[in-house]
């Protein structure tokens, strides 16, 4: 049995080519760890053992066949987990909800197929807040997921299981979704690199929809360079999602200038987090990156706007779950789902639609314009990912509004459709990870990756692992 797995895809694939280990052995390694450690973390809902071995054997054959190139299988041997919102043909998909407790879909999402075609090996489906409604993992109908850095704390959400699967070494990478912060925030809480791509870059076809004008398909990796590699496979036009743009980002200039939004450093920001972010800024300054204070004046409205538009679209997207063609009936919805459906229905209803939904759509434009103005001057924005490090299980569970406010630094980017990258930036005194967030112009992920890779050459935070 393998003792450990290399830190990067590049090194992993070197090892495969050198025959240090095989794909099947990689699956053995991860399955063994899951069986040993996941019962106390609850990050997986379904383990697709049979299909993992079948895919692994197939990839080993390719490896041993000799006449292949890594450009044909850029993710060969990469073991991946999928948040249980991704439809996987023939493999149970629950969305973290009792409504789809036994649902086995007849088709797979575009991204699942893309990754498998690229040589990746699916190990299972990860736990999440039901329907992606949450920022902690506590809203799953299948029990909360725990943070491997400290099991009394939440790993963040809604892609809770996905984050834990990578940080606990249950998979090499993990796919999640980010609608208001659901990849970035758990990445921050579990010491991972988490990408929310530009809206319109990665196909949403075959992923359970939460809020259609906000949902993005993101992923968790240990390093920024691997995040770049995954996006190279997941991004691009398919013939099923008509909101995809085939745009490539701008050419990257030599000198980088980063903006620090003053509204993100005010009241409500945990002092330790603040310290960590400021330290990260100093590290990058020493390398010659220019920083400038900028303003995103409508920041305080991001959460209220988000909590009108998102529930409205949620209430619409969840209308199809009536138990007629699949799943259980609507009585199986949990309380957070019902709350959001009610809220969304209210803001769309006759008499309230103009005051709430239409109004929110207009303020959304202002929030988006804020970013456009700032990006005339700077190439990227640096800020905290979340106002606090991971919080204790149960701490915010009884106050839905308190939980919603956790989205304060991530919701704006979602409303504007811009990309966001959360990168490990340090730890609190009691060893809880803290991430920093880079935001960029639409389709400019490359710039964020460049800055992130630079940071990871100067720091070692991302190399640290939790003791499980």
């Amino acid at each position: 049995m393998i003792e450990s797995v290399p830190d990067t895809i590049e090194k992993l694939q070197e090892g495969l080519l050198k025959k240090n280990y095989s794909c099947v052995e990689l699956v053995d390694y991860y399955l063994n760890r899951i069986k040993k450690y996941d019962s106390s973390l609850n990050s997986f809902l379904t383990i697709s053992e049979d299909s993992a071995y079948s895919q692994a054997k197939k990839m080993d054959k390719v490896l041993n066949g000799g006449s292949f190139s890594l450009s044909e299988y850029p993710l060969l041997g990469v073991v991946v987990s999928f948040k249980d919102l991704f439809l996987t043909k023939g493999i149970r998909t629950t969305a973290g909800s009792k409504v789809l407790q036994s649902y086995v879909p007849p088709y797979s999402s575009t991204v699942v197929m893309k990754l498998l075609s690229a040589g990746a090996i699916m190990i299972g489906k990860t736990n999440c807040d039901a329907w992606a409604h949450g920022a902690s993992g506590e809203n799953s109908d299948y029990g909360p997921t725990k943070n491997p850095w400290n099991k009394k704390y939440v790993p963040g959400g809604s892609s809770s299981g996905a984050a834990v699967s990578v940080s606990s070494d249950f998979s090499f990478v993990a796919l999640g979704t980010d609608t208001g912060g659901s990849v970035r925030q758990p990445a921050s809480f579990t010491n991972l690199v988490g990408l929310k791509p530009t809206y319109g870059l990665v196909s949403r076809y075959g992923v359970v929809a939460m809020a259609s004008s906000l949902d993005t398909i993101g992923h968790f990796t240990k390093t920024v360079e691997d995040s770049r590699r995954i996006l190279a496979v997941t991004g691009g036009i398919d013939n099923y999602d008509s909101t995809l743009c085939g745009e490539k980002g701008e050419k990257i200039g030599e000198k980088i200038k980063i903006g620090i939004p003053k509204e993100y450093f005010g009241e409500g920001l945990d002092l330790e987090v603040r310290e960590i972010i400021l330290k990260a800024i100093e590290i990058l300054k020493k390398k010659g990156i220019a920083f400038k204070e900028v303003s995103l004046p409508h920041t305080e409205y991001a959460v209220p706007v988000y909590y009108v538009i998102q529930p409205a679209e949620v209430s619409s997207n969840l209308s199809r779950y009536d138990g007629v063609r699949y799943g259980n009936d609507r009585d199986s919805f949990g309380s957070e789902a019902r709350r959001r459906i009610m809220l969304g229905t209210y803001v769309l209803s006759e008499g309230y639609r103009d005051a709430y939904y239409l109004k929110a759509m207009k303020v959304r434009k202002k929030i988006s314009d804020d970013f456009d103005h700032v990006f005339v001057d700077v190439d990227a924005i640096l800020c905290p990912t979340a106002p606090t490090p991971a919080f204790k299980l149960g701490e915010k569970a009884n106050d839905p509004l308190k939980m919603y406010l956790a989205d304060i630094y991530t919701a704006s980017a979602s409303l504007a459709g811009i990309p966001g990258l959360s990168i490990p930036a340090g730890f609190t005194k009691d060893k809880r990870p803290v991430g920093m967030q880079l935001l960029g112009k639409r389709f400019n992920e490359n710039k964020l990756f460049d800055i992130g890779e630079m940071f990871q050459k100067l720091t070692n935070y991302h190399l640290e692992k939790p003791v499980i």
Partner: protein
Amino acid sequence: MTKVDSSDIAKIAKLAKLDLSSDDVLTFSSQLSNIISYIDKLGEIETEKIEPMSQVTGLSQILREDTSIPENTLSSSDALSGTEKTHNGYFVVDALIDKGEDMKND
């Protein structure tokens, strides 16, 4: 504070096709009132001349050709696989009170 009262909750629940217990109605009434009051903050901003932003991408006219792709059509067994409530290739639900085909709330 904007009040979302029990009768509002009952109306919304009906539109949303959710069955609420009387406890639920009280809880949601208080929670939604709280949340909506917070959201009322949006009234502070002047948005008279602003266009609502319903699409972030700026795309328009993304259409497909009228060609059939037979591989995409599900087999009947796949189509019916999501539930056991089927009969001779149909999905089955309890009859609704109204008679006649195409009886919709129109």
